[in-house]
């Protein structure tokens, strides 16, 4: 692409810059333009991504592609652009303000090592909004919002990107003659790069703190925040790593539906609403899937809702299954026809439902769960003698088999077929063993 390079990447027709006299922003833009020139890039190979603050005005001064977005979010847009089109060189121009509000994006882009190039225009305060303090404002500095001096520890932007794994990290000033070279190195690095460029806000920070170039350099020394390249790693960029993921994934087959052909028939005449209530770890939802799938294999229509606490491995686990000769419209259950309760957690969770049940409903109830307050028929959940050994690990599958026998909604064979068709072979084998107790 070298043949496309320009003498300058600045849109000269849009000059002069809208920056204050003495502001360093223009210097950094010139350094970027010179760097693009020495890299020999064509203007359409480069996207400059800016956001809010004075630096956000920069996009119109470039003849390259440009994107101007929301405060502190430039890195996210840039990363999205680069992910989709890795051939583009993506340069983020952002201020210290943007690095504050978008700090989360900055450190995560460094972690991700996404191949974008961040130039921080770090002038220690918010210029555009009137000189308020930012995350990099030095201790004791006077700003519009720290009239008696800032009390906050300043954020080390380069250091933050460095410790979070960013591939190429440097610190510089707007006055450095070698800035175009450092920018070139950063842009040629495969991975995240950031140059924390210190500079002067002549409208606010300089006059309020008597902070000129000399003072800035001695502040840099005093903070022991050296300029130059701070980190260069060989860690692969997100773009490189993801290519490998795509390569591996391309071997896998795409997602497809779990199609169940009607193999059995059913005489069910009206919908039946079943609630299975147990505890986490009892595979209640899996048993609900078996019942719903067996019904589906029998030409019925089903819905299976699941309810469990956000802490998946403790507390209740409830499956609500509607089985119907017609497609299910309303899939909720407030008054079940059938409830099967196998653990105290489930009993407590569905007490509202069991309480609502009338004598037309039936509750199948495990031993040892105490009294239950309901007008429904309450019957013991009885398993064949031979099933005792499966009680601890497979009580939900036992319950599914029990209900299949007891309610006669579909042939028992359908339950077995459901296990074969929807479950992994190993699990299906266990469940088929469980179902055998009922034959």
């Amino acid at each position, binding site marked *: 692409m070298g043949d496309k390079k320009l003498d300058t990447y600045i849109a000269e027709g849009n000059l002069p810059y809208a920056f204050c006299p003495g502001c360093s922003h223009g210097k950094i833009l010139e350094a970027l333009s010179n760097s693009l020139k020495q890299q020999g890039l064509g203007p359409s190979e480069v996207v400059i991504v800016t956001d809010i603050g004075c630096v956000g005005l920069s996009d119109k001064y470039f003849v390259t592609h*440009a994107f101007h977005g929301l405060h502190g979010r430039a890195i996210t847009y840039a990363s999205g652009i680069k992910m989709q089109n890795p051939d583009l060189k993506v340069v983020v121009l952002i201020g210290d303000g943007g690095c504050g509000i978008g700090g*989360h994006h900055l450190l995560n882009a460094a972690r991700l090592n996404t191949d974008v190039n961040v130039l921080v225009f770090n002038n220690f305060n918010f210029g555009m909004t009137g000189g308020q303090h930012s995350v990099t404002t030095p201790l004791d500095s006077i700003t519009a919002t720290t009239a008696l001096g800032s009390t906050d520890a300043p954020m080390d932007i380069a250091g933050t990107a460095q410790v979070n794994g960013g591939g190429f990290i440097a610190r510089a000033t707007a006055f450095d003659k070698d800035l175009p070279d450092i920018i070139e190195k950063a842009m040629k690095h495969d991975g995240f790069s950031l140059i924390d460029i210190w500079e002067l806000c002549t409208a606010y920070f300089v006059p309020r703190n008597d902070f000129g170039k000399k003072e800035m350099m001695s502040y840099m020394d005093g903070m022991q925040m050296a300029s130059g390249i701070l980190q260069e790693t060989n860690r692969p960029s997100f773009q490189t790593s993801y290519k490998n993921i795509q390569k591996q994934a391309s071997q896998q087959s795409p997602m497809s539906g779990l199609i169940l052909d009607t193999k059995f028939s059913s005489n069910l005449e009206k919908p039946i609403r079943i609630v299975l209530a147990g505890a986490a770890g009892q595979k209640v939802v899996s048993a609900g899937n078996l019942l719903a799938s067996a019904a589906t294999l029998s030409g019925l229509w089903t819905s299976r809702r699941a309810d469990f606490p956000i802490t998946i491995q403790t507390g209740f686990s409830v499956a609500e299954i509607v089985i119907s000769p017609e497609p299910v419209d309303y899939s909720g259950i407030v008054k079940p026809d059938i409830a099967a309760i196998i653990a105290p957690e489930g009993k407590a969770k569905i007490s509202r439902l069991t309480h609502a049940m009338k004598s037309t409903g039936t509750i199948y109830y495990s031993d040892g769960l105490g009294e239950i307050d309901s007008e429904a028929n309450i019957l013991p959940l009885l398993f064949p003698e031979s099933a005792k050994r499966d009680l601890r690990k497979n009580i939900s599958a036992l319950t599914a088999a029990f209900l299949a026998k007891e309610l006669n909604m579909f042939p028992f064979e359908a339950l077995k077929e459901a296990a074969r068709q929807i479950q992994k072979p190993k699990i299906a084998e266990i469940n088929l063993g469980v179902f055998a107790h009922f034959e």
Partner: protein
Amino acid sequence: MNNQQREMVDGAAAIARGALNAGCNYYAGYPITPASGILSHMLRELPKIGGIGFQGEDEISSLGHCIGAAMAGATVFTATSGPGLSLYSENLGLAIMMEVPIVIAISQRLGPSTGAATASAQGDIQFMRWGTTGGYPMIVLSPTNISESYHLTKRAFKLAERFRTPVFLASDKDTVMTTESVSVHDMEHTPDWPEIPNGVIGKKLDPYRVDGPIHHYTGSSHNDEGHITKDPDIIATLNERLRMKIESNLDELSLVKSDLEAGADTLMVSYGVSARSMEAAVNEIRNVGNKVSSMTIYSLWPIPEKAIKNNLKGIKRVIVPEMNHGQYLREIERLVDRNVELVGINRVDTILITPEEITGAYYGR
């Protein structure tokens, strides 16, 4: 009917498949129940087809990544729930202003705030409409079941592309997380909906390309070159175009299912998961010989005013079941004559509205 092929599927899988079928090749999102199933499917599936699935560090970053990828030519998709939609707000405005096509699936859960994690609700209907600065029109589609989730997702991609704007697919916990038997025929065949015409109504988005023309895009008020302007005439023209590209195409955007019965003077209006309870109630009412009309709204925004007004002819009472405090009822209210009685059936307690509540309202109980 018994010999039809059935598929066991949940809404998350249906939505993901709809997106993939529509040509989605970029997804960025952040985990949140009940939308996480969509995230998992997309992050697993996209690399298989050479696309990119990315989990952002938060919702702001996720939508930012989607916008960036779209500007570089990707067909993008994301999904979240109410708390994530709150964080999408600012970039939603950017996408409107930059005319970025993005499909956003919102799987609603009960709020406010983190609310009841995780129970169904329809509390974000007005939030989707008015969820960013400026009050510009939004396109929001809402499926009532799993096969519609699939087909409306595909439709959302077409609309986003045609109107160059974010499009919401508004579903809920129950539609996304409930597994159902769905007829394979219904998954494979689009319902009898009017086709979306080809062509672009919004500003054509020409992505950044290494060998393409130079583009400047901005989220600020801009001139044709994509540069910030404060010229009132230019700003007025831009903002009017952003509004009118949607508001002058209401007929094309309107999508409803009307089930009218001659002589009925009650019209039920619902959407999403509540429309299924409405359908059950309508069947019960008709089974005992009473008359009732109903309509399911698929295109929640812009409001399908013409279709609603058509169905209001001869209607003396409108019943609107919805899992919020009456967010759509207030829209119907604008459209009815003063002598029409309006009845809201509202639940915000984690429980789906039951058909009995709706028949109860019909019989004035």
